[in-house]
């Protein structure tokens, strides 16, 4: 983060008192769902060893419901546990999942892509004021400097489309968007300079594929980029293959990415991956008035068309 920008912004602490309410409600709901055998497992968050941390957990025993919580450390998008990439979780039976607004959008997308049926999953929505950004020591208070970038621009603090919504939303401070600003800066550059920027970003990629693995939409049985014959992109963690990988990934997510920004959060090399996804989302909004929403849609922008679509770029 650019320190000067940080300093220019007045320190603002975000009220997270509603998270305790959420924690309590999640626990009682999970307990009920498991006890009444409405679901076989609940995917939620529990505390990690590190103080103030939270990690995903899958509980099957109502007694364990007390472990569940909600805090600014609950950064994960748990919808990945409902995808086919995590078959062992789905094998447990009917699931309930704790979801923030951003996560719910991914869930809606997954329903649209036939990954599960809406009625198969109980969604416990959380009224969310925001969560930590990457690289924050667990337990730090949630402030304008520790909050994730996506939360600054969040439009879905309350996931209305969930089966129930827990917690309560305090009044939220108005935080200026950062990602948009950055995108505009990049847009203003010459293509050559942008290329330099992304080249620098991608060349340090180590192809740990954390971005892919946490992405709710990267649920393919076999990733195109893991494929040998033919090899779409080089698998070696080198600039050439990395560039290919990130372009293919951005393209595959275009029109699908729901904006949870998990890819960017988990990147050990701090590559601003969500910037690409955001850019694609902006373009799709402008071209086809499409925005990832809370409700499943039958066809995404790239699996449908309109005869009147823009074609000014075609000779």
């Amino acid at each position, binding site marked *: *983060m650019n320190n000067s920008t940080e300093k220019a912004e007045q320190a603002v602490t975000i009220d997270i008192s509603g998270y305790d309410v959420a924690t309590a409600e999640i626990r009682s709901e999970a307990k009920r769902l498991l006890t009444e055998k409405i679901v076989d497992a609940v995917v939620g968050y529990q505390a*990690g*060893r*590190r*103080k103030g*941390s*939270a*990690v*995903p*957990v*899958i509980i099957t025993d109502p007694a364990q419901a007390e472990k569940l919580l909600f805090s600014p450390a609950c950064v*994960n998008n748990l919808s*990945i*546990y409902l995808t086919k*990439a*995590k*078959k*062992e*979780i789905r094998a447990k039976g009917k699931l309930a999942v704790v979801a923030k607004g951003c996560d719910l959008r991914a869930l809606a997308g997954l329903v649209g892509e036939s990954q599960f049926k809406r009625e198969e999953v109980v969604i416990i929505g959380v009224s969310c004021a925001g969560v930590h950004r990457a*690289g924050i*020591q667990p337990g730090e208070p949630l402030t304008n400097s520790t909050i994730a970038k996506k939360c600054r621009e969040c439009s879905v603090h309350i996931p209305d489309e969930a089966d129930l919504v827990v917690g309560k939303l305090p009044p939220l401070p108005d935080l200026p968007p950062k990602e948009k600003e950055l995108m505009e800066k990049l847009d203003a550059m010459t293509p050559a300079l942008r290329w330099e920027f992304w080249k620098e970003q991608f060349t*340090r990629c*180590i*192809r*740990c*594929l*954390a*971005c*892919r*693995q*946490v992405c709710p939409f990267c649920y393919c049985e076999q990733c195109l980029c*893991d494929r040998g014959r033919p*090899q779409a992109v*080089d*698998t*070696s*963690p*080198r600039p050439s*293959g990395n560039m290919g990988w990130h372009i293919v990934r951005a393209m595959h997510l275009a029109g699908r990415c729901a904006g949870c920004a*998990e890819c960017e*959060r*988990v990147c*050990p*090399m*701090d590559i601003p991956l969500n910037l690409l996804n955001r850019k694609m989302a902006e373009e799709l909004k402008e071209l086809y008035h499409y925005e990832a929403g809370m409700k499943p849609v039958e066809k995404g922008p790239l699996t449908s068309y309109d005869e009147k679509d823009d074609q000014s770029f075609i000779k």
Partner: protein
Amino acid sequence: MALTITEENLRKLVDRLVKDGARVVGPKVAGEMTVYEPLTSGAELAPGTLPRRSAKEAFFPLSETILSFQKGKEGLKVEDVDTNAFPRTVLLGALPCDAAAPQVMDAVFSWDYKDEFYLERRRRTVIVGLSCTSADDSCFCTLVGLAPTDTMGSDLFLTPLAGGGYSCQVVSDRGKEFLAGYPELFAEAATVTPVPPAEPEGTPVDLAKVKLWLEEHFEDEIWEEVADRCVGCGACAFLCPACHCFDIVDEGTEQSGSRRKNWDACAFSKFTNHASGHNPRDVQNKRYRNRFMHKFKYYDDKFGKTLCTGCGRCIRYCPVGIDIKGILEEIGKKALSTKDTKGHEENHHG
């Protein structure tokens, strides 16, 4: 008497080395992180903070060409990599958890098959370790038998001094030899006051007992409990100073290309995927179990060493908060009551 070097001279040393044509790999600031990178000048050196990635890349790069090929009418023409062209390298400012790792890995790379690429680089490298003066809640070197002041793996070992500069301890002959090239940069001091090392917090574990426990608990619900959440990325392995699995891939076309050695990670679902489509480690927790077993049991079985230096990187960067320190502590706790009986044999990953 202690050998010392000022901060300034340390940087000068870098400059000299670079000038002499050596590759000096050391911590360097890049954006918000620090990484081990070849330095172009002493000014770039940023000692003291734990770099994002480990130093193993100095010997075991993310990706390297091991041969290149060209197919013509006359047949296949293969060109080998000239290991003699590998640069003389000084790994400077490696914290004990990173400095110790190569020594752990030496065993596997010179076992039944001698990996000339790794070994040649090792032969050409001098490691200058650095005492660790900052630790966080993810650090656990002390739990795996190391310490912030451990010189294991280092040829020379620097300890930051309270008034600035470093004391320099000669650990190996190679270190001594290296030192001989730059006597003017070092000084002798009668007494030195080191900056106190950072001892990470944690519940000590008995690694032998942990190993015994693991032998008996190949099947255990703990694996599901701690690793069902694993999403199968390679962040832990790729940041780990000791993980050394690699994959061989051919790149290019059938006509020409290169064979490359790329890092691999046991968390990847295709890691043990058989050609038949069968995967013995079909779910993520089994893959994590393998990772843990490899570090604390299999490697020890084979080479008598623990394959973990406690750097804590995998904890910090695990997308889903899988915490090897916590798991080790938990198993350590459970293992206290374990009796020393003969464990199961398990196939090693090679």
